[in-house]
């Protein structure tokens, strides 16, 4: 009998269309005569909130430990041990989430969308490495970041990357950062998390494109040290600036530099700078003119960048789901599309009018217009400042770790004879002569 009712229902449903569903419940709850007990659906809980606190605590602990290891203990092997721990904990155990790199997206969203609730643990992850960075430089990159650590562990045959290439490639990272911020601010998605290359390893499960991306980065990373950190990582760019300003920074030697040149090739990331040679006196006037020219050029570059960014905004805005939906609905309404997509079907159930959706799209488009212009201007500013920075005559007296580029991995420590003496005072008698020889050479 029940089946008969159902058939009627199906027929009427087909006739009237499903939109005219009207009853609260088509079939009343059954009255059981046996002692059947109705089961309830299980609700397996997510990770307890306590874990968030633990993650924050572990982050703080590892950061402080890293500071101690890099600045006071100065032993690469200990730093490697901490890296392995970070890969295991933040990587494999916590599956690479939450991480400060991705937190850029969340923080941006919370700044632009007052309806978004920023989890406290994300905020801690975003600010803590930066805060520590202002005091001690990029210790986070050195031993705590699981993405950095997994790359650092595969640096087997590092080849030097010429300075010009490194600087040019880093512009790509700036573009990535500004687009990520733009997309997060306009509610179009979190780019950084979407293209996290090592997530496939940390989760031991992924779609094939991400896995290939990860293998690619690790494969390249055997020969080019830490490619993601140096040429992609947006958080690394923030930490670079923190490193520039930091109160203390990593030093190659624990004492005074003796210019032995032994550390020259120690850094696989090209972050050790030799002392500068004297700049030629005769081109001084020309170099100054060039600087002035570059400052003027900067203004033009910014204007041009802004214009290109503005012109690109309709293209960029297509990444926004609302814009994409509005375009779909519009092409549907215009008869350019015969079958409604799932998105259109879903939109039709929300009760929102097409016009309201278009208005929303226009709003998003205008924020993209502003954002695209700003991104273009910002990219031009970055490149222009870089041009100026390269053209300034710097003076360096000693072998130094680059404040911005040093990833605090601790490889160079062992190359410094002064450090070796500290570690093994027994070597002193043997090495003193060679040290003197080196000093004489220098």
């Amino acid at each position, binding site marked *: *009998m*029940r*089946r008969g009712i*159902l058939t009627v*229902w*199906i027929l009427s*449903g087909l006739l009237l269309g499903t939109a005219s569903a009207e009853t609260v*419940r088509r*079939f009343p*709850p*059954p009255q*059981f005569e*046996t002692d*059947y007990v*109705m*089961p*309830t*659906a299980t*609700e397996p809980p*997510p*990770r307890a*909130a306590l874990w*968030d606190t633990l993650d924050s605590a572990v982050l703080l602990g590892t950061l402080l430990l890293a500071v101690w290891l890099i600045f006071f203990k100065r032993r690469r092997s200990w730093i490697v041990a901490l890296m392995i721990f970070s890969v295991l904990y933040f990587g494999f155990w916590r599956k690479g*989430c*939450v991480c400060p790199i*991705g*937190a850029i*997206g969340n*923080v941006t969203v*919370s*700044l632009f969308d007052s309806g978004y*609730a*920023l*989890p*406290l*643990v994300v*905020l801690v992850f975003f*600010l803590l490495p930066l*805060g520590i960075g*202002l005091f001690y430089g990029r210790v986070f990159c050195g031993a705590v970041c699981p993405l950095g650590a997994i790359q650092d562990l595969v640096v087997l045959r590092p080849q030097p990357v010429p300075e010009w290439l490194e600087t040019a490639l880093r512009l790509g990272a700036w573009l990535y950062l500004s687009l990520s911020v733009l997309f997060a601010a306009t509610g179009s*998605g*979190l780019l950084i*998390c*979407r293209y996290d290359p090592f*997530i496939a390893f940390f*989760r031991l*499960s*992924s*779609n094939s494109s*991400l896995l290939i991306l990860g293998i690619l980065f690790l494969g390249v990373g055997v020969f080019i040290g830490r490619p993601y950190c140096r040429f992609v990582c947006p958080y690394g760019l923030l930490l670079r600036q923190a490193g*520039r*300003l930091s*109160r203390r920074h990593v030093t190659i030697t624990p004492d005074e530099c003796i210019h032995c040149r032994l550390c020259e090739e120690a850094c696989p990331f090209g972050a050790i700078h030799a002392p500068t040679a004297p700049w030629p006196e005769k081109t001084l006037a020309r170099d100054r003119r060039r600087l002035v020219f570059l400052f003027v050029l900067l203004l033009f570059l910014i204007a041009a960048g802004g214009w290109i960014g503005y012109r690109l905004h309709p293209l960029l805005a297509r990444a926004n789901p609302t814009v994409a939906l509005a375009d779909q609905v519009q092409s549907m309404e215009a008869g350019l599309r015969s079958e409604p*997509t*799932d998105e259109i*079907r*879903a*939109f039709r*159930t929300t009760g929102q009018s097409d016009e309201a959706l278009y208005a929303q799209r226009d709003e998003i488009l205008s924020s993209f217009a502003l954002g695209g212009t700003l991104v273009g201007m910002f990219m031009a500013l970055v490149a222009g400042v870089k041009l100026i920075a390269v053209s300034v005559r710097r*003076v360096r007296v000693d072998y130094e770790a680059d404040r911005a580029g040093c990833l605090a991995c601790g490889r160079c420590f062992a190359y410094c004879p002064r450090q070796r003496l500290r570690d093994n005072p027994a070597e002193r008698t043997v090495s003193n002569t060679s040290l003197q020889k080196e000093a004489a050479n220098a």
Partner: protein
Amino acid sequence: MNNKPNQLSRRQLLREGFWTVSITAAGAAAAVLAARSRRPSMVWQIDPFKCIGCGRCATHCVLSESAVKCVHAYSMCGYCDLCTGYFDPDPKALDTGAEHQLCPTGAIRRRFVEEPYFEFTIDESRCIGCGKCVVGCAAFGNGSLFLQVRHDRCLNCNECAIARACPSQAFVRVPADRPYLMKDQR
């Protein structure tokens, strides 16, 4: 070269200034953002009311076996013999034969309770979250079958891959202390 110490101190001053500005900015950002932040954390969940059962949950999760599974709100179920969430639209016989079933993995178990009622339970180890049964049940039944993110499986990715693919924006962030949006417990 005698202007070198002077130059250095100017740089020092600049750096000092920038440092102070940065640390103040970081502090201010921390304060502003902390005011907007919240605990406990948020987790992903499907708003079953917005879900249209498109089937993308089964294919877009970063896990090779989706974290989204079908959940049964028993108190909403009609315990029908002809369950449109279980059977093909036009079943030839009401039994458990594979040829009649809607579920592509046979994850729904059908059990006789008493005349004329049948109980349907979800075998989660088999369910792939395709939502075929959800659509079937919602079309002609009480809508007691619906999809939920199962938090014993979900990694709570920062950007959920299914949320990005979801056509109805049914993926929402819910507080971790109330992580399910059960249809019968509102």
